[in-house]
């Protein structure tokens, strides 16, 4: 019994311990920016990239004298790629740390609950990478405080369909997409619609789950009637899996995808000869791009991937809006952000539409060739 009593006391202390953290908050010597990203769990790597991107932006602003006369401070929250954790992290940042601005999160399943918490508490939030429309709009109603920095970009799919039929003369294509990812699903749907409208034939149109690694079954289905092209508009890690297995299964056609391919971690050997759509080319001579890549490489030792880039862009969009509003008042900042027009970011020049999505612009087609991305065409959206 005694041990139980001692243990009970210990447990109670452990329970109360977090309350000690209640004290914090207040203090307006710095301008706090909350960052919520998966810092643990299966997509930790995306979280780190995002955090790095935001960190770069903040450091640059701080080096230039900060914002509104204050240094910017990042308060990091971990969502573990889990919706409940995301809610807790967002609530904690807003309530405990009193942040008024949030950059995050990576996955839509985390950004959606965060966006609800942020919007309800009148905290400006911008998600760098979450493409689900429900992040910014719920039941047809805009969440005024919520934005995203990435292109939802179904037109990318249409652009690839156009390029494939017109430039490559592709007649048949197979499409794989992640059932749980609106971005991937959107690209796939638009590709399919546009490709078929142009007289192409989609031989196989199959969904998979994010946890899948074995694509042999789907590929065997594809190989029953080998198409000219295999379209996989997912992130590089998934693309690598599919591409290598596709080659092992004897697929000799063209591999294609979307801007998720844009990574130094792409398996260049397996993807060799493949095409993908993107917002910009890494060999794009624009200063924003070249500076960004060089600085990132200097600090982190790798070429920035899409997540880092979008994290950087999102932070810049937000900080710029604060500067434009010249106020820490979230209401003014969100108005300034909504009014953003023609703001140059690494991933393109951004203006927001009425749903707080960046309005798309030119689509670039890149080819994977001998370990490099080569710019082959630029298409205007239709």
């Amino acid at each position, binding site marked *: *019994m005694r041990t*139980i*009593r001692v*243990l*009970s006391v210990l*447990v109670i202390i*452990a*329970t109360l*311990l*977090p*309350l000690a*953290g*209640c004290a914090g908050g207040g203090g307006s010597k710095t301008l706090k920016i909350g960052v919520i990203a998966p*810092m*643990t*769990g299966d997509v*930790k790597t995306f979280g780190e990239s995002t955090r790095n991107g935001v960190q770069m932006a903040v450091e640059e602003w701080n080096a230039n004298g900060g914002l509104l006369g204050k240094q910017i401070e*990042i*308060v*990091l*929250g*971990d969502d*573990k790629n*889990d*919706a*409940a954790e995301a*809610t*807790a*992290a967002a*609530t*904690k940042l*807003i*309530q*405990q740390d009193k942040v008024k601005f949030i950059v995050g999160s990576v996955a*839509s*399943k985390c950004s*959606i*609950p965060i966006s*609800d918490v942020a919007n309800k*508490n009148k905290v400006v939030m911008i998600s760098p990478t979450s493409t*689900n429309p*429900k992040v910014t709009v*719920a*039941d047809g109603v805009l969440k005024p405080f919520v934005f995203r920095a990435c292109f939802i970009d179904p037109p990318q799919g249409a652009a690839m369909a156009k390029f494939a039929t017109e430039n490559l003369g592709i007649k048949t294509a197979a499409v794989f997409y992640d*059932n*749980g*990812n*609106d971005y991937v699903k959107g690209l796939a749907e638009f590709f399919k619609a546009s490709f078929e409208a142009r007289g192409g034939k989609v031989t196989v149109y199959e969904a998979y*789950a994010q946890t899948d690694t074995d694509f042999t079954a789907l590929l065997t289905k594809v190989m029953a009637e080998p198409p000219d092209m295999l379209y996989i508009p997912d992130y590089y890690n998934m693309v690598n899996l599919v591409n290598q297995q596709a080659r092992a299964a004897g697929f000799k056609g063209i591999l294609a995808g979307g801007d998720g391919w844009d990574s130094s971690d792409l398996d260049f050997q397996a993807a060799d000869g493949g095409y993908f759509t993107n917002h910009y080319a890494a060999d794009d001579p624009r200063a924003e791009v070249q500076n960004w890549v060089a600085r990132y490489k200097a600090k982190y030792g790798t070429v920035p991937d899409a997540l880092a880039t979008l994290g950087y862009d999102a932070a810049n969009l937000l900080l710029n809006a604060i500067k434009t509003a010249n106020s820490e008042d979230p209401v003014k900042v969100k108005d300034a952000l909504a009014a953003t027009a023609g703001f140059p970011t690494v991933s393109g020049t951004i203006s927001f539409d009425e749903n707080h999505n960046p309005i798309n612009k030119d689509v670039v087609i890149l080819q994977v060739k001998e370990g490099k991305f080569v710019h082959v065409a630029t298409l205007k959206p239709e």
Partner: protein
Amino acid sequence: MKWKVPSWGLLVILLAAGAVLQLAIHLEVINAYWALVVTYMCIAVISSLGLGIIYGFSGQFALGHAAFMGLGAYTAALITRYMGVAPWTFAIALVGGALLAGGVAWLVGLPILRLRSDYLGIATLGFGIIVRVLFENSDKVIPVTAGARGMTGIEQPDFVFLWAFLLLLGAIIVARNLRFSSPGRALLSIREDETAANLMGVDVVRYKTIAFVLGCSYAGLAGGLYAHTFLFLHPSNFDFIKSFDPLLIVVLGGLGSITGTVVAGTAWVAVLEGLRLVLPGEVLEWRYVIYPVLLIAMMLTRPQGLFGTSEAAILRPREAEAPAAPALATEVTADGTHP
């Protein structure tokens, strides 16, 4: 531990405490973050108490708890989506979630509860995965669940904490009353030795089913609360990995101990959230490294759990000590060692 508070008095005190806490949350004396944490504690404990009934009481190693929580969550969320979140519709939603989870548990239990020990565990785990896959594909039947992309548009009812707290008290009382009753002893006997229980006249199938259905209803109830606390449902929140959480809590508290489950469930949430608060940004990624280390250390130092099988005094029944005079004659004593 000689707390001589009459149980009704204690209940009144607890009810008052809950009301005060809710008031503090309402007036934002306690901020929304802490409200979320304490509400989540209640939810975690309710769900774990359910597994406690299934595993702790009747010894059925079930690993599909998260799936039943998910069933309750989606059901309740769908109900309030169409009926709104007035107190009575919220009540209907919660009951609906619990009933659906219980009903599915009954249907699944009919064939599956014949399995024993680890085979039951893996079959229920498999069931949990099937349910997750169904959630992922549910948008083909019910578009508003949005399948693998997660269900949005759940409104928050008023006083969620108070709801959770009151339901937690109810869950504790029901579990405790069950534990100290004849059906409860039947459950425990099944845990101890199923065959012997059967041979002593306990309708094993019936009581295993009762435990499973009741425990899964707890999960469903917790799911309904979960849906209306976090307001967003995603199939991955009810994945098989999540079924380990109530299992950890039940075992850490001590198998079969209601007290242990309450304490461990509370502490479990406190540790996970505490780490979020204590760790600065640079080492935040260590959160889920420290947690398993604590878990292992805890298990190595106290393998029988915090409370073993014992209960706090307030939960134990006050059995009237009957006079020790047996009615039957005792001229025959079986042996002389203990006269």
